[in-house]
């Protein structure tokens, strides 16, 4: 029997797509790369996932897990004709209010979970700007972040357990509901593994109490470096706000045209900061941030007067990428991270690169984490522009790495940065990661050629001391 026929027998015709017209959209994520899809399956249960993994393995066909396809690093883009497993039909979840946790199927949308939990005064802390569209499975696979991850940490800090189907067709629950599950923390290694170690079918996530009070500030600056210095100053000054986001003028201008959130478009940069907590604390912390901003030359510092204004500011922040789509046919969104002490100098270099390559560079990013998102807007139909974009992107990474940073803060390595891994890891480091992946997926059938560059596994590493040197 053919692969597709076997899958149809398992799932029925409706949940197996093989018509190229229908599978085409599954060849791409929200980044710029495309790959080839053999078929798409839409399982509705863990048992179905196990069964289809078995079928794919018998046919020797690579399996590529997929959530909503909002990833930006090509994580769900097949590198060879593959079976794409879309988890979007798995949308059930159960909230345990007393333990502040929830078992969530992989296809549940991030925002749906938080909106439901809000009824119990709780939320799922990781809040990627794509939260209305992206899935919990995708968040887990990418260890996604968001503006409010500065104080609360990224997805991995909020996942207590995962149920995973491995390439061998095993179903394992890693982690657990009680604290410090015994044995190795394999949960922690599956989170952020970008679909290479297993298909996450369910996750047990921590829910966080909604803060009783919040203050949201918007400060504007005549120079980008003053905004960056404010970020470093706030962190060095002894408070970790709930969020500390930066946008530059090109970005605020685009957002204002798109949603009208009330960002000043005459400032070179704005900082959006939020402090949350006990009502008696937020005032003092907001004052501290204001003072640091003013000592770094801030112009206006405005505090959102009410929940409506606060919500509007956040809507503007989270709509930023949508806004960019209105201004240019194509964009390339970068993601890298640097120590927060290096923000001022790194931002200067970011703009220098944009100038040199004559690219429209816009910035909106998680400044408090040192997590940069330089975004290049362009028109791919123009001659040679893609080369310029790619070279500029590589230089951006080099600048961040030279400043002691890392390749990706939250979007993942996927295909996009796979070949840059040797910039930050030695051959021995990469070899160890490859060996780890082998323990889960010895034949490399799950999301092959992602995360690690070809040749990471070097079989002769391991014994630096020559044989026979002792006894």
């Amino acid at each position, binding site marked *: 029997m053919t692969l597709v026929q076997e899958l149809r027998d398992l799932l029925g015709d409706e949940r197996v797509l093989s018509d190229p017209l229908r599978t085409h959209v599954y060849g791409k994520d929200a980044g710029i790369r495309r790959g080839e899809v053999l078929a798409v399956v839409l399982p509705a249960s863990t048992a179905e996932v196990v069964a289809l993994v078995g079928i794919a393995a018998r046919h020797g066909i690579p399996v590529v897990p997929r959530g909503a396809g909002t990833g930006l690093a090509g994580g769900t883009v097949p590198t060879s004709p593959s079976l794409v497993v879309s988890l979007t039909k798995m949308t059930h979840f159960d909230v345990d209010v007393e333990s*502040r946790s929830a078992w969530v199927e992989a296809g549940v949308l991030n925002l749906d979970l938080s909106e439901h939990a809000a009824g119990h005064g709780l939320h799922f802390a990781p809040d990627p700007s794509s939260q209305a569209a992206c899935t919990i499975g995708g968040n887990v696979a990418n260890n996604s972040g968001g503006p409010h991850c500065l104080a609360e940490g990224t997805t*991995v800090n909020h996942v207590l357990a995962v149920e995973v189907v491995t390439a061998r067709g*095993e179903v394992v629950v890693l982690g657990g509901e009680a604290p410090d599950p015994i044995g190795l923390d394999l949960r922690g290694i599956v989170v952020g593994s970008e679909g290479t170690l297993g298909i996450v079918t369910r996750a047990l996530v921590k829910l966080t109490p909604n803060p009783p009070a919040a203050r949201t500030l918007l400060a504007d600056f005549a120079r980008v470096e003053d905004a960056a210095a404010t970020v470093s100053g706030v962190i060095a000054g002894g408070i970790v706000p709930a969020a500390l986001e930066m946008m530059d003028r090109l970005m605020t201008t685009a957002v204002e045209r798109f949603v009208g959130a009330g960002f000043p478009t005459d400032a070179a940069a704005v900082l959006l900061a939020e402090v949350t907590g006990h009502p*008696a604390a937020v005032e003092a912390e907001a004052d501290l941030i204001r003072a640091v901003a003013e000592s770094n030359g801030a112009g206006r510092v405005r505090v959102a007067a009410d929940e409506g204004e606060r919500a509007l500011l956040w809507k503007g922040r989270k709509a930023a990428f949508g806004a960019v789509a209105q201004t240019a046919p194509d964009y390339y969104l970068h993601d890298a991270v640097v120590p927060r002490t290096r923000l001022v100098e790194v931002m200067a270099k970011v703009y220098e690169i944009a100038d040199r390559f004559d690219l429209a560079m816009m910035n909106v990013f998680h400044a408090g984490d040192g997590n940069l998102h330089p975004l290049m807007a362009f028109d791919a139909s123009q001659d040679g522009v893609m080369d310029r974009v790619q070279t500029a992107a590589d230089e951006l990474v080099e600048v961040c790495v030279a400043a002691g940073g890392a390749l990706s803060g939250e979007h993942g390595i996927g295909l996009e940065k796979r070949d840059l891994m040797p910039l930050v890891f030695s051959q021995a480091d990469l070899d*160890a990661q490859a060996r780890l992946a082998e323990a889960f997926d010895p034949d490399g059938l799950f999301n092959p050629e992602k995360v690690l560059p070809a040749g990471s596994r070097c079989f002769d590493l*391991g014994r630096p001391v020559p044989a026979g040197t002792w006894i």
Partner: protein
Amino acid sequence: MTSLKSALQGRLGAFLSEPIEGLPEEAAVVAPSTLDEAAVILTLASKHTLPVLVWAGGTHQGLGGRVDPAIVLSTARLNTIVDWQPDDLTVVVEAGVRVADLEERLAERGQTAVLPEVPGDGTVGGAVAGGISGFRRLRFGPTRDRVLETDLVTGDGRIVRGGGRVVKNVTGYDLPRLAAGSLGSLGLIGRVCLKLWPLPQETRTVTLPEPRPDYGYRPLAVVEEPDRVLVFLAGTPAEMDARTAELGGRCERGLLWPGQPEGAIRLSLRVVPRLLREALTRIPSSWGYQALPGVGEVRVGASSFQLESFRELRHWAEGHGGALVVTDAPAEVYELVDPWGTPPASMDLQRRVVARFDPDRVVNPGRLPGSL
């Protein structure tokens, strides 16, 4: 002196160290002062399949299966604070740095690594390798959430770095998280980068006569003992006034962390937070305890080992997705019961992972559940 020990002493002479009290005399004690030296030692051990016991502060050696070592690898000479970036809230330290020493240094600039509050001689490497968290995990999460980078010397002597010195990072597989709590099963955790937090402006300890269903919005820590409840608060001065007024009880300035419950037998009962109250009703009345509401852990101290009560409690905990772990006890106890209890269902995968780092299984062999 056994011939193995003298042969090892001859080969590892450069790294030899003082004997450690309470450890078998037959073992050669070595204390490397660099990761490269540690790699030489582990390469040798792996080549000849010699069991190695990693010894740090000695405060948590009761965790996990017993190890009968040929080599004791002490982290005492890996004791440098390598790189502290106060303005970035990160610090890089070698494994053997004492928690108390690190926290004292960090406090000079108003920072903390949120490591265990009553560490004794415990080291940073020990806290990370053991997955040991303090009371403040209620507010800041477990220790493993703050491990940003690790330099691991694998069981077969490779030096492998994972993670990075930035607070947010998804560059490659998260080896630091795998290393946290690995109890040496991957090798020696030689050096770590930790995420720091600013120390709060003010702190209070509030003592209440009995537990409550709710202690207000995200206190720093809560410890319930048989005859009192300690609530730890941190924040701005105005917040401290408001919160202590809300709570009532007896209020003192500062954080007055309690010592461990008395007794030579120490257990850790771990349950879904929702079941904590019920768990307490199942603990024999002669046992002392510290219950951590919201976390789901009960730290137990007892002066004698009651096998029947232990088995009943473990059975109940495991039946509800939890565990009852022996964290310290006299040697006889480890002969009566497995310190972990029933191994997790993922043991097969765990074995495969461990084999990629320590193929000859020489570092702390048998420490993990399932005698892994």
